[in-house]
């Protein structure tokens, strides 16, 4: 089974932490995350990134800057703009980005 690596980035620490926890419930996914934008290059050096999941608090310029930083290390990264801050929309957003149907988590 291919594991898709998800990088969660946002400015609300509690919501980023929740999203990491929720993403990691899917066996096909592995999530890392940060609220500190300067940490992104370090994370990209130590971990592959298949999906960039934007959480709340980021302006368009920051999202563009983050995408560019990630692209310096990894290619073909899918971008997901997460809305809602929790579990309700997450599975659909990931399914659509990855072209998969993720198994429902326990």
């Amino acid at each position, binding site marked *: 089974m291919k594991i898709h690596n998800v990088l969660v980035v946002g400015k*609300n620490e*509690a919501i980023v932490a929740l999203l990491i926890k929720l993403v990691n419930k899917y066996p096909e996914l592995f999530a890392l995350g940060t609220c500190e934008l300067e940490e992104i290059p370090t994370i990209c050096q130590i971990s592959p990134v298949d999906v960039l999941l934007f*959480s709340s*608090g980021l302006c368009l310029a920051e999202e563009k800057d983050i995408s560019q930083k990630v692209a310096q290390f990894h290619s073909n990264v899918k971008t997901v703009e997460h809305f809602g*801050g929790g579990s309700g*929309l997450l*599975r*659909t957003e990931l399914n659509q980005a990855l072209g998969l149907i993720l198994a*429902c988590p326990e």
Partner: protein
Amino acid sequence: MTKSILHKADSRGQANHGWLVSSHTFSFANYYDPSRIHFGALRVLNDDMVKGGMGFGQHPHDNMEIISIPLEGDLEHKDSMGNVAVIRQGDIQVMSAGTGIYHSEYNHHKDEAVKFLQIWVFPNKKNVTPRYDQITLQNKDSLNQLQQILSPNPEDEGVWIHQDAWFHLGHFEKGKTSHYQLKKPDNGVYAFVLEGDFQINGYDLNRRDGLGLWDLEGFDLKAQSENSKILLMEVPMHI
């Protein structure tokens, strides 16, 4: 030419967690249907029943306009902005989640179920300051006519949200008709039958059926049974 999409009540996604029974018009949580993700800016239309004494513990939301409409019973709300409230049938609650908000929702009663609609609309602006509001509707204004309950304008009738959306409720006697004129040409309308039966644009709609219409200026609706209730949600079709 008018475009339309019909969602019959029994085609909705079902979730039964014991304490929570929910019908999802659009993909939500474990229900996923790629052909049913959203209707324009309308992303979630959940028809929820929560057993007595039960509810959703504290959980976060961000960047979403969240509207709750109790249909039966009372719903207790607490949030991280310090709001504590009970919303009842005839009330409308709205939250702009924006940069992030925590809240809980519980059935206010231990021995009777609460039934409510939870509606999520994509905002037209991300990362707004979170806000909460609730109002009580005057039922006398909705018999045999459409009553505006939501708009983009704080000064207008009903609650307001960060989106070019207008919601109307109507309670009709059998045979009564009404006309709905869209506020913006690029918007569409999602009609959701709360009770009874309606006819809209040649479609016969029954309880909890949904009909999306777009590329039109307006439409007529007709109640086909007594005590028929409908919710019209006008939203932008392009997000």
